[in-house]
């Protein structure tokens, strides 16, 4: 079981109220987690990663197990605790804007 914590705007957009949970077969990486998330919630496509380049949007960061993993390669394995569902994968918006 994978757990993903979305920022408030994306929870509203996806019409979910809490953490998102889903099963994921195979490797657990940023790419596979986000692919699975977008497959379940197509409205999130383009709001976390660019549609074409799949690059993380500039004002978002990815965290897991208290570590900023935003700059890790998208195909690098996520921590075991995330793969086991003990820790969530966080999508966090920058504290910025007006």
């Amino acid at each position, binding site marked *: 079981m994978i757990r993903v914590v979305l*920022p*408030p*705007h*994306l929870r*509203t*957009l996806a019409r979910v109220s809490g953490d998102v949970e889903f099963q994921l077969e195979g490797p657990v990486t940023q790419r596979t987690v986000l692919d699975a998330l977008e497959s379940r919630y197509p*409205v999130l*496509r*383009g*709001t*976390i990663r*660019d*549609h*074409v380049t799949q690059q993380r*949007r500039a*004002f*978002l960061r990815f965290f897991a197990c208290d570590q900023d993993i935003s700059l890790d390669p998208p195909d690098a394995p996520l921590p075991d605790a995330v793969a086991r569902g003990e820790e969530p994968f966080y999508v966090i*918006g*920058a504290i*910025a*804007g007006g």
Partner: protein
Amino acid sequence: MSGARVLVGTKKGAFILTSDGKRKQWDVSGPHFGGWEIYHMKGSPVSPDRLYASQSTGWHGQVVQRSDDGGKTWEAVGNKFVYDGVPGTHQWYDGTQHPWEFKRVWHLEPSLTDPDTVYAGVEDAALFRSTDAGQTWHEMAGLREHPSGAKWQPGAGGMCLHTILLDPSHPERIYIAISAAGAFRSDDGGKSWNPINRGLRSLYIPDPTAEVGHCVHHVAMHPARPDVLFMQKHWDVMRSDDAGENWHEISGDLPTDFGFAIDVHAHEPDTVYVVPIKSDAEHFPPEGKLRVYRSRTGGNEWEALTSGLPQSDCYVNVLRDAMSVDQLDPCGVYFGTTGGQVYASADAGDNWEPIVRDLPAVLSVEVQTLP
């Protein structure tokens, strides 16, 4: 005709105001999409409960929303705006070339005949079209690929395509305007485009009468007389009587000819409204007095409309897409401010009142006349 529905896009959400034909009592719904910037909302002229909304934030980019019940419920539709081919470069602020990058949708213009067809004007400047009610978007690349594209440059608000006018008499004719490139016209349904900026004079660019490079803020048209266009340029209020081929200045006796919004009376094609703003350095009304100016002569002679508008200590702005008219009789005129007020006049501008007063900064106002 029984009423009006005002679609208000703000910096922090969308609001929908409805009233009967008297336009005295208004119901306010919203915020819809709270916290998101709503650059524009507009309804289909042939299916008025079909609405489209442009929703964006710097964090999450672009979302497009569609309603089929007049804004009671919404569905997110397609948000994939990809330039056709390799998009090339345009001029950057410092004169260097800069790659085209999609940022947001500034304006949504539903087709005059098909509720599933809608045009999107975007930043960086390009025109997109959807023919499946917003699910998928395709660039009409002939515009961006115009040979002048490398000379287009962003205005202070970005390089945005903000105006889309569909000509009801010539179904293949489309006008658009870009800040800061100028106005363009297509006579073949958007396949090919020509700049229509002859007569514009912009002292802030190296060649004041260049073919492109003008900071056009907005263009308005009366649907019964689509060859006549009215333009609020960065400075100067302009008019064309030949579908944009030639422009002449009609600023006349305005206190300042800087501004953003411009619109035309629904029943009087020569009655035009602008909101003069002090200057490009000071984006607020002259003397702290919020005044709409009306010309009943197609320009040059303007009268200040002040009844019901603040006439002291008012320092709001009225942005380019934040003025609209209804089709009722007398014609209603509406505009929103960066201070969060939406003012309405149910008598063609003679008298005004705020129909909502404390919204986030208003980015756009569109009005639907309900049957």
